[in-house]
């Protein structure tokens, strides 16, 4: 275990402004698209190696894909906190088991230690600390997952809805001003800028 001492150069900044911790644990980088200005903190596991189309059928080895298929797509100003796990969902469809891309929108916040196996997190989605978003779940824009919630597999969280509990249910709605720049749900830019400052 490396000593947990955040150094000044903990984050690598890419051309598009992504800030990626040196201690993040990213697999299959060629299958991950980061939209820019995305933050990935230490010990976050991102499973780009679980992508679709890698010879799903043993009898019929698929033609090698010309372009690497995308396993995880993250939008702009999204924030993956410490120890979170992003993992593309998988399911059996028509006899073949395959992985489906995990799409994460803009201004998304994924809290510390959260486990995301969703099919989609929309824009401005907030996933609280220690929450679990189950396989193939869909969280629409401005959805809010409370800390520690367990969104069951296949659940759809509509826009503006707050879900919590185990299993998660809709417990309320965020205000109309949610997501306004600078207010709750609209802090993504500030969060991004604060990263990497001692």
């Amino acid at each position: 275990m490396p000593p947990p001492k955040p150094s000044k150069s903990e984050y690598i900044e890419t051309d598009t402004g992504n800030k990626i911790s040196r201690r993040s644990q990213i697999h299959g980088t060629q299958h991950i698209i980061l939209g820019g200005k995305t933050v990935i903190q230490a010990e976050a596991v991102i499973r780009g190696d679980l992508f679709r189309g890698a010879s799903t059928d043993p009898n019929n080895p698929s033609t090698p894909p010309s372009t690497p298929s995308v396993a995880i797509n993250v939008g702009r100003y999204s924030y993956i906190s410490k120890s979170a796990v992003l993992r593309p969902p998988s399911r059996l469809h028509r006899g073949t088991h395959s992985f489906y891309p995990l799409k994460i929108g803009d201004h998304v916040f994924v809290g510390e230690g959260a486990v995301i196996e969703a099919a989609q997190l929309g824009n401005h989605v907030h996933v609280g600390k220690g929450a679990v978003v189950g396989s193939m779940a869909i969280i629409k824009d401005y959805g809010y997952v409370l800390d520690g919630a367990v969104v069951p597999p296949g659940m759809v969280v509509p826009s503006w809805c707050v879900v919590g509990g185990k299993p998660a249910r809709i417990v309320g709605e965020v205000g109309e001003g949610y997501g306004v720049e600078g207010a709750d749900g609209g802090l993504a830019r500030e969060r991004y800028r604060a990263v990497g400052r001692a």
Partner: protein
Amino acid sequence: MATLKPPTNTHRSSSSGPPKAPVKVDSTATIADNVVFQGPYPVTIGAGTVIHPRAKFYTYEGPIIVGDGCIISEKAVIGSQPPPSSRSSSPLPTRDGEPTPKESTTRISYFVTIGPSSTIEPGVHIHSSATIEALATIRRGVDIGSHAKVCSSCEITGRVQEWFVVWGSGPGMRRKRTRGAKPLSPAVLDAARIAQTPLPAPAPAGKVIEDARLMVLQKEREILGRMLVSVKKK
């Protein structure tokens, strides 16, 4: 059949870092890079088992035996790290003054699924076809019955019977899964009697669902095996 990696824990000096546990892996098992094996006791991994990257095995309190056909997801922790004070001294630490048994084997049977970021403490015995979901915690010495499921974020401190599902928060609610064929719901029976319509054909036994689940798991293991290997080759 086994590829025996030579044990590297010859010396546990503080300079050489934590000891690497001796690992005995079946040739058909798939173990990703970045899987951590630490501790003096050995780890045994059965045929067809898939271990995702960043899983951690700590054998400071006893060996870990993983059966055939298991999936162990990323950031799962099996066993426990020694407390920092005793790391250099004794591999058998005592906990809260209560002496732990000399050696507590952690057993994970066949076709077990262990979710991401879950914690399996030493001495746990997970029977076949059980599922431990993400962020769940199985405390020391707990016995998880076959075909049981521990849902996300549950903390298990006592025995879970076979075919039971533990869900909800904290200690959780328990539910018994159906194995055999179930009689029709009373609502359906009543309705059919009143409306004098023929009863719907009997549904198959609940076990088919479990069979289907295990079938899906089998396919998942196959594809994972190929993917993790192909990644390794690159």
